[in-house]
């Protein structure tokens, strides 16, 4: 490989090991100046590791980095910034109660001398960037008052303010509405028109098709291929990424719905700030139906789940499962009435990480006569059950029943939760962000499981911030905005844009 100057970034033979685990093995990547280049791969493929090396957050064990044809040694992010590299992380690093302008200049303040901040000069510089790239934000607003999409723009401005020519975006669309995604794509195009280089890390195939010119695929730390996006279709990309053929769209037959199994009537719930997070929300789910709730994070989804599972009291309204009212009772009572929940935060609420797989499997049922007798735990029975479920749900490693769940990968941790909840044989299964952060293989498995539970006649409440997921899986689709269901649709009667508009609080005319 020749070192050419028209490549903004060339990384050669990058190897990174964590102990005995090789995260990256001799990875090569070339990124052309003034293009949008995407890095595609499953979770754990090494995408973020590779970019963290470029940004100086990690140091490679082997390999070389060239910027514009010149060899560089990026020991830490400060050096990366000096070289004109900026990175927007998946989790934003902003000070909530600072204004946008204050956040942008943080660490690189313009001063009038003697350490007095020259906010006017800074504002001028910021406004120039805003204008140039169409990054519409108000520098005087507080971060805590603006949307996630806005915060992302702030992160981008922050990088540009520091003189970034190469901008790395880690999973930039994960938290955005379809409209916001479009806006982001526009911004990225303006950036490359100005000669900047944009690198995006993603596992969403359709966005790559829309935005990039080239795409590098990584799989388990290995370089697989770099393709021109125009030449391949989404299936090809997915196959390269996973290494086998996958079904991108969950296969399901039309729902055979029964009676109403679960209903919520005029529910009101307050959040920690004592404000109504759920306002007059009603919905019902029939047996054999998946009801998906689409919405942007923070529109009451969390409070809704906490109200149903009784982790939070309700103010007004009724929640009924099979006709039994369960609001303001206890989590134990809800479980007894056959409501099972796959919680959003699997490590905090779903699992006891230091318990073994077997102990986690019986977290809700250890008192049942099946697993204990006269208050004594029947360890053998629990281990046997765990072995059975590990096999049934393909939890890896296959002999992990007595290992702490902490040692399992994210996908396998989620499988432990799903095994436990499905094994409860619930009448209502609540799944909140069930596939967040998981790779394509695990997502496929979880979607299949949800559909097969539906086919067994269970009511399923799916809450996800991934619009694709909700649209794919739901028989009925409800849009939540500001604590209320603003509209519901049968599957196939609505397009993504309408949903996106409703999610953002817009009105659909007609």
């Amino acid at each position, binding site marked *: 490989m020749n070192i050419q100057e028209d490549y903004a970034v060339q990384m050669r033979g990058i190897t990174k*090991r*964590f*102990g*005995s685990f090789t995260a990256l093995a001799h990875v090569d990547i070339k990124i052309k100046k003034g293009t949008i280049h995407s890095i595609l791969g499953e979770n754990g493929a090494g995408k973020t590791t590779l970019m963290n090396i470029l940004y100086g957050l990690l*140091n490679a*064990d082997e390999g070389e980095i060239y910027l514009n044809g010149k060899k560089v040694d990026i020991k830490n992010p400060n050096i990366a910034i000096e070289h004109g590299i900026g990175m927007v992380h998946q989790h934003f690093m902003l000070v909530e109660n600072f204004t946008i302008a204050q956040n942008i200049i943080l660490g690189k303040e313009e001063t009038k001398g003697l350490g007095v901040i020259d906010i006017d000069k800074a504002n001028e510089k910021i406004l120039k960037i805003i204008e140039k790239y169409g990054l519409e934000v108000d520098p005087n607003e507080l971060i805590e008052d603006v949307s996630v999409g806005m915060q992302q723009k702030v992160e981008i401005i922050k990088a540009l303010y520091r003189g970034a020519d190469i901008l790395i975006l880690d999973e930039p669309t994960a938290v955005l509405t379809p409209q916001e995604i479009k806006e982001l794509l526009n911004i990225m195009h303006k950036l490359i028109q100005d000669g900047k280089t944009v690198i995006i890390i993603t596992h969403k195939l359709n966005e790559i098709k829309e935005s990039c010119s080239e795409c590098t695929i990584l799989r388990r730390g290995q370089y697989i291929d770099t393709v021109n996006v125009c030449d391949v279709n989404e299936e090809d990309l997915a196959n390269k990424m996973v290494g086998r053929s996958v079904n991108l769209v969950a296969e399901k037959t039309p729902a055979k719905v029964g009676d109403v199994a679960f209903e919520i009537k005029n529910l009101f719930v307050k959040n920690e700030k004592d404000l109504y997070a759920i306002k007059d929300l009603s919905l019902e789910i029939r047996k054999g139906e998946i009801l998906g709730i689409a919405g942007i994070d923070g529109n009451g989804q969390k409070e809704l789940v906490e109200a149903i*599972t009784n*982790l939070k009291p309700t103010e007004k309204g009724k929640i009924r499962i099979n006709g039994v009212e369960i609001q303001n009772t*206890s*989590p*134990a009572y*809800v*479980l*007894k009435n056959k409501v099972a*929940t796959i*919680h959003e*935060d699997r490590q*905090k*609420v*779903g*699992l*006891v*990480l*230091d*318990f073994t797989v077997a*102990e986690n499997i019986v*977290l*809700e049922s*250890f*008192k049942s006569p099946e697993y*204990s007798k006269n*208050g*004594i*735990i029947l*360890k053998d029975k629990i281990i046997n059950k765990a072995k059975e479920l590990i096999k049934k749900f393909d939890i890896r490693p296959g002999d992990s029943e007595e290992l702490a769940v902490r040692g399992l990968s994210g996908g396998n941790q989620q499988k432990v939760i799903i095994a436990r909840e499905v094994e409860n044989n619930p009448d209502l299964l609540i799944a909140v962000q069930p596939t967040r952060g998981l790779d394509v293989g695990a997502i496929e498995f979880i979607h299949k499981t949800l559909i097969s539970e539906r086919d067994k006649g269970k009511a399923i409440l799916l809450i996800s911030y991934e619009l694709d997921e909700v649209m794919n899986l739901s028989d009925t689709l409800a849009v939540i905005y500001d604590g209320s269901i603003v509209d519901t649709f049968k599957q196939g009667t609505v397009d993504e844009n309408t949903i996106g508009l409703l999610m953002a609080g817009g009105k659909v005319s007609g």
Partner: protein
Amino acid sequence: MDNISKILKHKITFILIAIVVGFLVAALVLGLTGYNPLEVYRILFKGMFSKPRYIMNIIIKASPIILTGISVAFALRVGLFNIGVEGQYIVGTIVATVVGILFDFPPLIQFPLILIAGALAGGLYGAIAGYLKAKRGIHEVITGIMFNWIAFYAGNYVVSLERFKDPGTTTTYFINASGFDPVYNWKMSPVGQELLQQNSFLREILGRTSANIGIIIAIIVALLITFILRKTTKGYELRAVGLNKYASGASGINVEKNTMQTLLIAGATAGLSGALSITGVSQRLFELMALENYGFNGLSVALMAGGSPIGSIFAGLLFAGLNYGGGSIQLEIGAPSEIIDILIGTIVFCTALVTVVPLLIEKINKRGGNKKC
């Protein structure tokens, strides 16, 4: 590398290393102040083991702190720091004394009655802190520290009451003899006296000490608590709450109830310890000038034991042994007995690192080939 870190990760290995480090640090201090550490340690161990009576005395001194250690270790498993153990111990001594003086049942009833009363009192005292934590979110360390002083002054108040105060002294009356420890009552009986006359070994370890059944009860409690934690549904619940209260709550486990029950059980263990001190050693309540530290020493014991109830038995014996043997250092060569505090302090400090060091090892392993540290 893998094997070494595996051995190092084992808790017991680490506690043993901590003990060695403790001795080395104390040796250094001794050396710097002009004493021969080897000589000091020789005297220390002579003071601990040279006579059977010494060993018995160590066991007697260890019994209460083993129990308070178990109290702390148990609460730690459920994620609570039972610093109120001192107060629970004191409440145990107060109620044991009051019951021992007010009632006079036959020994077969009186002795267990005193122990149960002491344990119950300590348990309820702990449960108040548990209630405040569960229902009002008040941290158990804050309430615990304040409750220690309430117990302290309550004890002195009881000593001052006319019904209990032995005139002309700063103590209560003795509890009724029916409540004395069975070992004591046996050795005072004609049969016991005769046997002690004949057997010089028994005379040495029983006759010349306040030998009591405390150690046996401590071992039983350690085994019982371990059994509860490992084998029962209650223990499973308690461990789950200790490791992750959010997941436990979401799984239908009542976190508040378990918090209260934990401090109830921990308090009862400390209260039992207090009651055994009354029946087995002092047989009456003294007016206190300062906290006696039986509870606080339990904190050290639990930390030395790495939070294990069974480990608390050995840690308690070590703690009591060093303190007991430490007395002879001062007597024989004039080295300050405070050196023992340095020794114990260093051991506790190092064992407290037990939880930190394996993490460090993991981190170093993760860095793998990376030369820089």
